[in-house]
């Protein structure tokens, strides 16, 4: 009995004092942090910079994705430099990336904003195989690009120390980059912090795939959900006048829509599925695998895409790996098996480094959606003492919450994780 009371007290004390508003991980993931709880930052602008990597050009219908692009938010004086890595499918200047960069800039950093391997621009212009998913290979490509990017902006920034920050897949990649740099020693990163990283790409993708596949079976249901959102927006605008898209408006809209947990799961799964559909199509075209497209057929600039949408037919991330990713890697390494590939796309492949390195830290949540219980346990054991786990926040829901940001900045500046 005493034991139970003790455990209960420990749990209560542990959760005490963390006032991030959404205790439900699905709601947290969808709504993130309300503006009034967010860390302060100004609307700093950034420069878009192009790198000609000569690794491939976009097909005519995807002309707008041609040429590798990254962002720079530079201080006008000497300042620590951090590379910021985006999550799956995120552009370097997505809302989350821009907000995180501004927060880092506000705290005195110059920031190089980079996409990671599942960004469409990256798949087309930066990836040699045009088929991301092999964590080590992807990270090596990103490492090379970081070198080129830094060379390109050298005269625009003054810095002494370099850091890496990344969230979601970007967090995972940040840790692998730490390992690569410990061998290549080009940057000598002072500290690396991974926010809500995934442990195993496939485990996480499977969870997200299932959120849609387990909860929706037909396109009618999808259509009904879409219509429910449209109706919600119509009613919302009717009641509140014109709707400007900001965090507060999206929050009120969700309150109005009154979605249940299954619907929230569908919405999260759907956001990920949109990325998977695009990745399936783009990699198929770029690798000429022929899973959904006919490689011999000429693609035009104003290509009708409906038939390809129909051919991709909501294929998920696992479909991409089976039909395109694995086939592509198999051409490079005949001995490769699916098991080996999955193993290589896990943080376990850099376990020794994770255990030893003293300049790395992980921030995640107890209710993180993209980690299995085993994944979370693995992180706790491996990162012992260099991990901060918040009681709530879902996947990246709380990353701009004041307390989270303060901790991240304290860690980057002073190495303190308390």
């Amino acid at each position, binding site marked *: 009995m005493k034991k139970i009371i003790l455990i209960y007290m420990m749990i209560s004390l542990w959760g005490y004092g963390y006032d991030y508003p959404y205790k439900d991980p699905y709601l947290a993931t969808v709504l993130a942090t309300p503006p009034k709880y967010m860390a302060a930052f100004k609307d700093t602008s950034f420069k878009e910079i192009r790198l000609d990597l000569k690794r491939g050009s976009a097909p005519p219908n995807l002309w707008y994705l041609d040429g590798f692009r990254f962002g720079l938010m530079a201080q006008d004086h000497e300042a620590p430099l951090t590379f910021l890595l985006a999550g799956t499918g995120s552009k370097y200047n997505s809302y989350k990336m821009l907000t995180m960069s501004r927060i880092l800039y506000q705290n005195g950093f110059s920031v190089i904003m980079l996409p990671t391997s599942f960004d469409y621009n990256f798949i087309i212009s930066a990836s040699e195989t045009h088929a991301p998913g092999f964590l080590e290979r992807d990270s090596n490509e990103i490492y090379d690009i970081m070198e080129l990017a830094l060379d390109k902006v050298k005269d625009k920034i003054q810095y002494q120390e370099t850091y890496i920050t990344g969230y979601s897949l970007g967090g995972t990649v940040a840790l692998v980059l730490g390992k690569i740099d410990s061998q290549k020693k080009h940057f000598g990163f002072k500290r690396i912090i991974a926010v809500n990283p995934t442990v195993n790409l496939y485990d996480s993708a499977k969870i997200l795939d299932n959120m849609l596949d387990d909860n929706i079976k037909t396109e009618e249901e999808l259509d009904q959900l879409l219509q429910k959102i449209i109706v919600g927006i119509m009613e919302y605008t009717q009641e509140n006048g014109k709707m400007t898209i900001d965090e507060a408006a999206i929050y009120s809209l969700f309150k109005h829509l*009154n979605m249940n947990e299954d619907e929230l799961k569908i919405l999260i799964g759907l956001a990920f599925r949109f990325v998977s559909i695009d990745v399936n199509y783009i990699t198929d075209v770029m690798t000429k695998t022929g899973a959904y497209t006919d490689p011999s057929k000429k693609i035009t600039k104003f290509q009708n895409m409906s038939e390809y949408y129909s051919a991709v037919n909501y294929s998920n991330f696992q479909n991409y790996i089976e039909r395109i990713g694995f086939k592509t890697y198999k051409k490079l390494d005949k001995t490769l098996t699916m098991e080996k590939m999955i193993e290589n796309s896990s943080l376990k492949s850099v376990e020794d480094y994770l255990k030893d390195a003293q300049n790395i830290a992980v921030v995640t949540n107890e209710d993180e959606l993209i980690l299995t219980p085993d994944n979370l346990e693995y992180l706790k054991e491996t990162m012992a003492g260099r991990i901060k786990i918040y009681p709530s926040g879902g996947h990246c829901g709380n990353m701009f919450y004041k307390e989270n940001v303060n901790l991240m900045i304290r860690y980057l500046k002073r190495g303190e994780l308390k």
Partner: protein
Amino acid sequence: MKKVFILITLIFMGCSNVKVAEKIPNNNNNNNNNNNNNNNIEKITVTENFNLHLNGGNSNIMNAYDPFEPLNRRIYYFNYHFDYWVSLPVSNSYKFFLPQTIRTGVGNFFNNLYEPISAINGVLILDYKTVFTGISRFFINTTVGVVGLFDVATLVKIPEHKVTLNDTLAIYGVKDGPYLILPFLGPSDLRNAGSLLTTFVLRAPLDPLNVYAGSDTLWKDLTIKGVEAVDLRSQVDFQYYSLGTPFEYEYVRLLYLRAMEIRTSNIKEN
């Protein structure tokens, strides 16, 4: 996630058929907590559509009556360039130089000019509420609201109830026709495009404030419409090809058609 909402908002901002109150009973999607404080808010429901399949068969959610698709895609591309080189710089300067209060006033002014048109459409569809709302809003906002710069009518609980010629035609059974991307304006369909054109041609007789003078001063009228367009563009947080997805044209079309479908079916049942 945000992309989905931006896209949907685009649909509402990009066409003339915005913000019509649509009434249909038995809507179980609502939590109804808004009905107490505003009886003018009416419910909207989804439409039934059962010819779609996921996974088990071929997807056909993207099927649409779009016979001019090759042309539409080219206009979509043209609109991107027009937007990039003209609309956005102008709209950004507009936002930079004029504070929000003034921009709201500009928006209110143009909305007020539309009230008589709503009222006339109300007469055509025999909906006394629309007529009453249109006339009273126009009267209040033109007088107390200083030629429409302030939306006083909404403050006194007469919210906007915009009904377009497109809605009227839909009620009288005119089909929407093929999907169109209009140069400069974006997603539309034949019926909607015809309605926009007719409303523009009839701008002078439909304008009691005499802002428009008719065909004699076409350029002056077009300039005024241009200001309205700049104001509208400044409120839309969307850029062509910004979603990055290869299926952007299809997603925009799907959302436009669904939004219109919901609107039309709600209006018909009203």
